[in-house]
């Protein structure tokens, strides 16, 4: 693969890509913006911004029930994105693609519907020690309501899942294994396919949180054989307020609906209510139509670069970032150093400085990173830290951005007197 990667690399002109993102022209405190917070939310290329404008200037209308031209154009555009996503994540049925407001809502939907009807007293729900709150709090609270048990797959000090005891963690009592595909803090990419096999052998259903993976590498949910998969448009060049829940049709079919209202019913009387067919059963009310329509353009933008290329490029850049950061005295990378099965979320701590001070200092130089617990307080505890600083990479970052980060981290230590 590595020779192929090198070849494809020539197709990937980062300077051209940078120029597609208007916000990168913005000056921050007099410096050029070095945006290293894509793990929180990515920037948007002009194509996506224009697609949104176009939608409101030419198509805007409510969807589905309308019989006029705008309503039909809007419905077609909305459903086009659904088909696009089905293709993008490995060729699912369109009935298996549900639009939500984001990863968080996708996971909560499963907890409120599948969880409410399938988890009973004494059942086990398996998560891991590196989950985002979105894939932790809903399950802890569900377990509390149901008197079910939360079990955790531990992690190694390097920040990888420790699967040595997996056969005792996932058992016949396990009803659900819910884990992140890629950690937003450590960058670790988990072996979903392997875990799915074990879980399915024990009769458990698997949900993978793809918020950090789908944007950065090719993902084939059919091949992974996951039962549910969740992700957010805003972390992959798309608009805010749009998420996806993929679910296997036979499982979705048996689930009760989540939110209730227009579009998700078939017939309503006080005696009897019947639900609409999939996927509409799970899409109550007016969705984020403009957002969904615009998401299509983001997917196309990513495909034009190629998810394989994006993955290869980011892996190289991540390796470069790690190499540069470990040169700084007192800095510790929190997460694997090896870039195999590792994405571009690079967390670090400084022996003397709190991540908030690091972030404030870097911002004064135009560098945007994130600092805090990254909605992963239990992982922070496991790592025996209260917070980390995190630089997270995307297609519009390059070595110059990493160099800027490195140089300012050096300058920072001088500023705070920790040379």
């Amino acid at each position, binding site marked *: 693969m590595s020779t192929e990667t090198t070849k494809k690399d020539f197709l990937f002109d980062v300077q051209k890509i940078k120029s597609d993102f208007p916000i990168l022209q913005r000056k921050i*405190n*007099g410096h050029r913006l070095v945006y290293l917070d894509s793990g929180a939310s990515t920037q948007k290329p002009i194509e996506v911004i224009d697609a949104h404008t176009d939608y409101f200037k030419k198509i805007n209308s409510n969807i589905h029930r309308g019989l006029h031209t705008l309503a039909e154009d809007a419905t077609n555009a909305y459903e086009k994105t659904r088909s696009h996503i089905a293709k993008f994540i490995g060729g699912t049925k369109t009935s298996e693609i549900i639009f939500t407001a984001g990863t968080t809502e996708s996971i909560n939907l499963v907890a409120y519907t599948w969880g409410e009807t399938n988890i009973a007293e004494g059942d086990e729900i398996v998560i891991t020690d590196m989950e985002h709150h979105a894939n932790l709090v809903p399950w802890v609270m569900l377990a509390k309501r149901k008197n079910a048990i939360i079990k955790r797959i531990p992690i190694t000090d390097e920040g990888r899942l420790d699967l040595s005891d997996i056969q005792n963690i996932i058992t016949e009592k396990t009803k659900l294994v819910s884990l992140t595909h890629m950690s937003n803090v450590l960058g670790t990419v988990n072996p979903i396919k392997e875990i799915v096999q074990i879980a399915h052998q024990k009769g458990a259903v698997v949900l993978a949180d793809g918020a950090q993976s789908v944007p950065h590498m090719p993902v084939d949910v059919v091949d992974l054989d996951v039962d549910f998969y969740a992700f957010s448009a805003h972390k992959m060049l798309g608009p805010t307020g749009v998420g996806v829940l993929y679910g296997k049709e036979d499982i979705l079919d048996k689930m009760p609906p989540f939110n209730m209202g227009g579009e998700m019913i078939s017939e309503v009387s006080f005696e009897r209510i019947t639900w609409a067919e999939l996927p509409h059963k799970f899409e109550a009310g007016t969705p984020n139509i403009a957002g969904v329509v615009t998401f299509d353009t983001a997917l196309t933008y990513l495909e034009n670069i190629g998810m394989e290329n994006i993955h290869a490029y980011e892996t190289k850049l991540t390796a470069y970032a790690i190499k540069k950061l470990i040169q700084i005295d007192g800095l510790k990378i929190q997460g694997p150093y090896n870039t195999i099965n590792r994405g571009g979320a690079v967390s670090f701590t400084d022996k003397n*400085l*709190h*991540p*908030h*001070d690091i972030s*404030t*200092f870097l*911002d*004064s130089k135009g560098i945007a990173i994130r600092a*805090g*617990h990254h909605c992963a*307080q239990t992982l*922070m505890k496991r790592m025996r830290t*209260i*917070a980390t600083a995190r630089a997270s990479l995307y297609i519009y970052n390059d070595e110059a951005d990493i160099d800027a980060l490195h140089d300012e981290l050096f300058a920072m230590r001088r*500023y*705070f*007197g920790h040379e």
Partner: protein
Amino acid sequence: MSENLDDMYREIILDHYKAPRGKKPLEEKDITSDGHNPSCGDELKMELKVDKKNNIADVHVNCKGCAISVASGSMLAEYIKGKSLKEVKLISEEIKKMLKGEESKITEDIGDLDSLKGVRQFPVRIKCALLAWMTLIEGVNKFENGTKPDSFTVSTEDDK
């Protein structure tokens, strides 16, 4: 946001941050109060010795957190020593107001504390500067109500 980095990280603040006052735990204490700031992870432990005239005889502050929370705790330790409980509560409320940009009635010279003003330009950091003062208020209140020491924890999230 950070054009005024030096406004926040003033000489004085960095000085307190690098060499925090009140580091030494007290042997005898009348008040202990713990505070923390969940969104940052900052944690602060405070011990106070109160003399018979209800003045602060001694202070210990141990803050694990960012430069701002550490410096703010250090300044507090320096400032409140010798002050009466009443004075101490008053100044804490005034510092809260100052940090939130509300009108404060501080007229006297508050020395180093004045340098905390720079934090105002960094709204997300205000909670860091507040931590020590909220922990102090809580501790003194409980002491006056006769609540036992070390039975409570302040969270900055409770302050709207």
